[in-house]
């Protein structure tokens, strides 16, 4: 071995043993081996070990090896099939459970909007109406026909639609001219007793799509017959009904607002019908650019939660179908109506209900306008001198607007 010549590496030995060292590399390796005894001995050791490894006898697995292998594979296959079935079943059940959970989650009642405690309407115990029967006898049936006509006659003396809005009743709140708003937040509204008597205004695209006249014509006709009024002096069938009257109008409240269904009702028969006719006519004339409007009778407290700003109308935010159904059922019962519950998708929508009579004042909700982050409810003060609880006939307590869910609701007095 020459001076400063390095020994061969294990890789060189391995490649040489396997015949993978060729050309100059092989010649260099062999010349190094010729002069280096240590590397030569190392190569001999590796060759000896390789020879020994190749001499190791092949092992015999013994008889029945193949049969045992097949037996185990078959057994494993059965277990594997069962495990696969079990896994599929478990995954299927888990998926079904997940779907059920999601379905239950989607069906949950929507939370109510929140207002601060200082904004809640304070109602004296004496003002709170008596609890209404679930399906008690209609109020109309309990009254003598003569008395009904008498009150109706008084009401007819009022001037048209304006007189309808002038019905004051039990009350709670005064209105400011300024628009008021409150922040919406779920699950923190106290339950308060609302005022009694009002008309309801309900806006919703789905309701607008319904033909309003057929829906309202049956109860209207029934109440006409009950009141004994002749049909000759009825200017428009369906509109002169004592309780409900229907008019259709388009509302141009804004790009989001869509159509509105205006529900207002009267418990009294003939005179109310006359007033409603006029109101319906007015709305019908305006209707080219307003939403569908349905006027129907409503009656009393629904019992949902009530919240308000001090200077805005007391109002209810209904955000679940249970409260909505209770409100509608109660008003139907009191007004002796059986109108179907207007569908409201509470995942996307909510109902704003404003009591019409509040502290001897009466309000009328005109329309709603939906902005990106809020809903504006336009209302009008329709208080008149006749707004007396004893003289004015009972009214539906709320005007109802169905709006898309927004974080804020503002009230703005219409000019």
């Amino acid at each position, binding site marked *: 071995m020459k001076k400063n010549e390095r020994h061969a590496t294990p890789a060189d030995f391995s490649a040489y043993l*396997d015949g993978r060292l060729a050309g100059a590399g092989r010649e260099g390796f062999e010349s190094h081996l010729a002069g280096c005894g240590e590397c030569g001995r*190392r190569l001999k050791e590796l060759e*000896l*070990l390789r020879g020994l490894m*190749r*001499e190791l006898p092949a*092992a015999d697995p013994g008889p029945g*090896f*193949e049969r045992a292998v*097949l037996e185990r594979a078959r057994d494993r296959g059965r277990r594997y099939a069962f495990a696969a079935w079990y896994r599929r079943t478990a995954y299927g059940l888990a998926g079904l459970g997940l779907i059920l959970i999601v379905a239950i989650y989607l069906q949950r009642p929507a939370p109510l909007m929140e207002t601060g405690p200082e904004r809640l309407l304070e109602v004296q115990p004496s003002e709170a109406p008596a609890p209404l029967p679930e399906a008690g006898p209609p109020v109309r049936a309990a009254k003598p026909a003569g008395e009904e006509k008498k009150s109706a006659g008084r009401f007819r003396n009022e001037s048209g639609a304006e007189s309808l809005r002038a019905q004051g009743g039990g009350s709670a709140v005064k209105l400011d001219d300024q628009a008021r708003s409150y922040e919406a937040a779920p699950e923190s509204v106290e339950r308060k007793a609302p005022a009694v008597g009002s008309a309801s205004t309900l806006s919703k695209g789905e309701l607008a799509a319904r033909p309003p006249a057929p829906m309202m014509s049956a109860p209207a006709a029934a109440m006409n017959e009950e009141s004994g009024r002749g049909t000759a002096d009825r200017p428009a069938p369906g509109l002169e009904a004592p309780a409900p009257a229907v008019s259709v109008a388009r509302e141009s409240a804004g790009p989001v607002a869509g159509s509105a269904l205006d529900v207002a009702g009267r418990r009294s028969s003939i005179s109310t019908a006359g007033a409603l006719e006029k109101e319906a006519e007015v709305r019908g004339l305006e209707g080219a650019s307003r939403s569908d409007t349905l006027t129907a009778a409503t009656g009393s407290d629904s019992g949902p939660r009530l919240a308000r700003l001090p200077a805005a109308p007391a109002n209810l935010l209904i955000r679940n179908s249970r409260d909505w159904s209770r409100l509608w059922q109660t008003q139907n019962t009191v007004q002796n109506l059986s109108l179907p519950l207007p569908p409201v998708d509470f995942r996307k929508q909510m109902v704003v209900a404003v009591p019409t009579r509040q502290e001897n004042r009466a309000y009328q909700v005109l329309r709603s306008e939906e902005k990106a982050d809020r809903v504006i409810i336009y209302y009008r003060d329709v208080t008149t001198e006749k707004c007396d609880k004893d003289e004015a006939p009972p009214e539906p307590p709320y005007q109802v607007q169905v709006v898309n869910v927004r974080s804020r609701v503002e009230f703005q007095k219409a000019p």
Partner: protein
Amino acid sequence: MENGKDELRLTFEELVNQEGKKVYNLAYRLCGNREEARDLAQETFARACENFGRFRGRSRVFTYLYRITYNLWCNRIRHRSRHPSFSLTPDDPERRPWEPADPAPAPDRALEAEERLELARRCLEQLEPADRLIIVLREVEDRSYEEIAAVLNCRLGTVKSRLARARESLREKASPYLEAWLK
């Protein structure tokens, strides 16, 4: 059957008949115990039967079976290292403790050759699992670099370096006896 595509057409029984002894021998070289090798080979075929759909036929089927065998064996080694156990029964002659033989030349040449083989087998068992596999594949079964690369799922350069390292390790394990054997 020269390639994996053809071997895909084999029935499982034909596969066991064709590759069973090879798999068993590999298992025996790795385990050093006949019973364990038998069990390991059976387990290899059971696993292969479960997952044979994953074999694409891009390499010979024995490389697929060898890889399963090696992985199962590594799992067993790992399990043993975590859960050591001791047998109370008399020692299996196959598993008797390592006793270095007397390096002095034996009088009987036949006995000496047998002893050399036994010592070589013991030296093989002392190697690390990866070194043991590559020595078995290359030195015992005389597999090509390409086949070894297919079993180990690595490149040829990696095979060369691993093989050189494994040979060197084996030489170091057997160094106490090599001098006497070379005389």
